[in-house]
């Protein structure tokens, strides 16, 4: 039956873990709190080390907390990450997305820094500051960074955070073969600014129930034997992996009905592996290419999604072309998969209507198949833990309702 206004907004008859309040996707104060309690506290990928391959290369990145970062490879070939901000008057140091510089010099008053973040020159230092300010006190702000899990540069802006290892736990085991057999190399990059909440993108990346949306997936994956036998595996900190699916490319229509022969070092050629890392990172290993999604949430209803396609360092030109072709056919800006996902999450954002008059969002499927929504429930369990709020009742309204 169609529902009245009251019925529409009535809590589902499911456990609190099995649905969320729509305002977790739309509320400004919750978003600000997520920034403080989650985005500024956990590890996230900001780029791949092959984006700064040579000594003195730099890459300007944005951290999921919103902070401007500068990833720099030093003379010692070590990658360090700093705030992309001059300590003098707060200007950004690098305006360009990438470059190479022995010294990073602010354009404004020409203060200079070396690749370890030391301030090496204050313009007319003695004349203006006499002995009141010392170069050693005005170094760049260095943030915790580690290069791991396939050569990705991970950053945590909380100096007191635990090590990356502890954060990832055993969620990486699943891809260890593929990520360690040979070094990776970035082959394409694009980003999109999407008018939706970042968690909706992550939900979609986790949830395989929505494969019904994708013609491509229906053709190559869903009809395959064993498709429904796969299970989700839950890991620490809200991370989730899914058993690999076997993709059968001969089912794709016209022109691409050839079986892919090219695999990925350390992995099986037709196995599609998915690893979703709380709160904003997704690894999508679908030989012959790897896709990494990262996000910078800009507001409750605005998100930058960055897509990176990776091949294997040392690929022959033919191999690289094939990896790239496959990657782009699905996942490039002209691919057949991403735009479909985007319509869904943008549609959700429109439907949620800033949280006003929207029903609770269901994450309630339980089944021993990849269509179980345990993957999303696991995410929101971690979210609730870090936020100190229940996703199904973020404003603590439930006891009041019960008391009435």
């Amino acid at each position, binding site marked *: 039956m169609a529902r009245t206004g009251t019925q529409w907004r009535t809590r589902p008859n499911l456990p609190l873990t099995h649905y969320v309040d729509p305002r977790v996707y739309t509320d400004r104060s919750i978003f600000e709190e997520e*920034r403080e309690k989650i985005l*500024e506290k956990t590890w996230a990928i900001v780029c791949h080390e092959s984006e700064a391959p040579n000594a003195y290369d730099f890459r300007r990145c*944005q*951290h999921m*907390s*919103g*902070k*401007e970062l500068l990833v720099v490879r030093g003379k010692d070939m070590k990658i*360090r990450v*700093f*705030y*992309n*901000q*001059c*300590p*003098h*008057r*707060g*200007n*950004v*140091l690098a*305006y360009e997305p990438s470059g190479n510089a022995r010294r990073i010099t602010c*354009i*404004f*008053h*020409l203060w200079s820094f070396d690749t*370890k*973040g*030391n301030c090496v020159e204050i*313009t*007319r230092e003695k*004349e*203006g*500051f*006499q002995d*009141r*300010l010392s170069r*050693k*006190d005005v*170094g*760049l*702000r*260095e943030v915790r960074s580690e290069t791991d899990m396939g050569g990705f540069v991970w950053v945590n*802006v*909380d*100096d007191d955070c635990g090590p990356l290892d502890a954060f990832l736990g055993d969620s990486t085991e699943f891809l260890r073969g593929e990520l360690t057999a040979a070094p990776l190399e970035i082959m394409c990059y694009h980003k999109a600014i999407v008018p939706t909440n970042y968690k909706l993108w992550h939900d979609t990346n986790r949830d395989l129930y929505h494969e019904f949306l994708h013609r491509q997936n229906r053709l190559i994956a869903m009809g395959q034997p064993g498709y429904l036998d796969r299970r989700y595996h839950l890991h620490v900190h809200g991370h989730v992996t899914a058993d690999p699916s076997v993709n059968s490319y001969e089912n794709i229509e016209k022109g691409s009905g050839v079986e892919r022969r090219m695999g990925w070092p350390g992995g099986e050629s037709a196995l599609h592996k998915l690893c979703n890392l709380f709160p904003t990172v997704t690894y999508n290993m679908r030989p012959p290419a790897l896709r990494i999604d990262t996000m910078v949430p800009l507001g409750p209803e605005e998100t930058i999604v960055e897509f990176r396609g990776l091949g294997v360092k040392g690929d022959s030109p033919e191999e690289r072309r094939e990896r790239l072709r496959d990657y782009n056919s699905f996942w490039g800006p002209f691919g057949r998969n991403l735009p479909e996902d985007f319509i869904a999450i943008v549609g959700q954002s429109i439907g949620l209507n800033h949280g006003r008059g929207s029903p609770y969002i269901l994450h309630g499927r339980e089944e021993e198949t990849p269509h179980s929504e345990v993957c999303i429930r696991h995410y929101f369990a971690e979210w609730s833990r870090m936020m100190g709020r229940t996703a199904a009742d973020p404003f603590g309204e439930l006891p009041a309702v019960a008391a009435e």
Partner: protein
Amino acid sequence: MSRNATEWRRRPTLAPTHYVDPRIYTDRALFEEEREKIFKKVWSVVCHESEAPNAGDYRRCRHMSGKELLVVRGVDMKIRAFYNHCSHRGNLLAMEPSGNARRITCMFHQWSYDTRGNCVAITRQKEGYQDRVSRKDMGLREVRTEVGLGGFVWVNVDDGCGPLEEFVGDSLDYLKEELSAKPLEIISYHKAVVNSNYKLWYDTNSELYHDFLHHHNRKIALIQPGYWDRRVHVHDHGHVSVDSMECRYDAYEGNDGRQRRLGWPGGEVACHKLIDLFPTMTFILRAPAFRLDTMVPLAPDKVAIEFRGFAVKGDSAEDRAARVRDHNSIWGPFGRNLPEDEIAIVGQMMAMKGGDDSAYVLHGREEPSIQNEIGMRHYYGEWSKWMERGASDPFGNRAIAAAE
């Protein structure tokens, strides 16, 4: 040395007057408070009298408080300023930026006003209002207006404010000759909406340490004899003036290699004089042209800057062409100076706004030269008075920390 989070957020060892909290540039509540306590209380220039040269001319302007104004030259040739706001249903009276009208008629229901702000026609008055509304009660809101030195139209939306003369004090004495020898005439107007805080533009206008940013200034100013001998002078109410210097056009490529002989009436041939007026204005005479900056702050991270260029009324055609050319070579929208300053303040905001985790911003240079940062310190001294908050500790955290 690069710094960790604690070191990055530590107060500089400088005196509290010598740095500011970055939140004065980014915080929304402080911005709203500035509007109430400063923009609605002090004098600022909204246009030049030559923008409404004839009886009945009007010019639509925006006051720094955000209010729409209508500057009108009456049949008595006197300049008056009103809210650009019909007394009937609140519609904007003038939609065009400028025009000429003996009567200002609202397009909506054709109520009319004369150039003194009297309501002179209420459409079908008797039929609709009988004797319940009188034209004499329906006049426009006139705001305190004075045409000051040089013909600039100053407005204060606070009826209880002191006179302009008291606000300006002796800060304009330095340009008195040049601004009174002959009337000025506007030659260029353009505006830019910049994603930055208005004070960052003012800072940049009032400190000359950033001359290092400008190729142009490095060439024609920094290496000139006398550059370092100039001093910054402070005046009441936060205003600042900077000693003149000889402007060497012949030292810069692209200026036909000739020193300018045209000069400016009442001033020396190659004078370059700068006056910054709290809170949003800058006067620059760089013979043979004069520039005025005014600002309408729109949000903590957004400001409309209006640029006006002036020549001398009665110029010969050749003189006028020379003034226009020199003005535009550095200060027009295709000039070589403004775009450089603007990228710096945009860069500051890019780095400051994401994540709310900037180091304190330094205004600490002390030197007996032009690169002393006393101009900015003087500004923030005045700002602190109006705001009743220290710029280096706007939220009183230091007192709390001391008490703990």
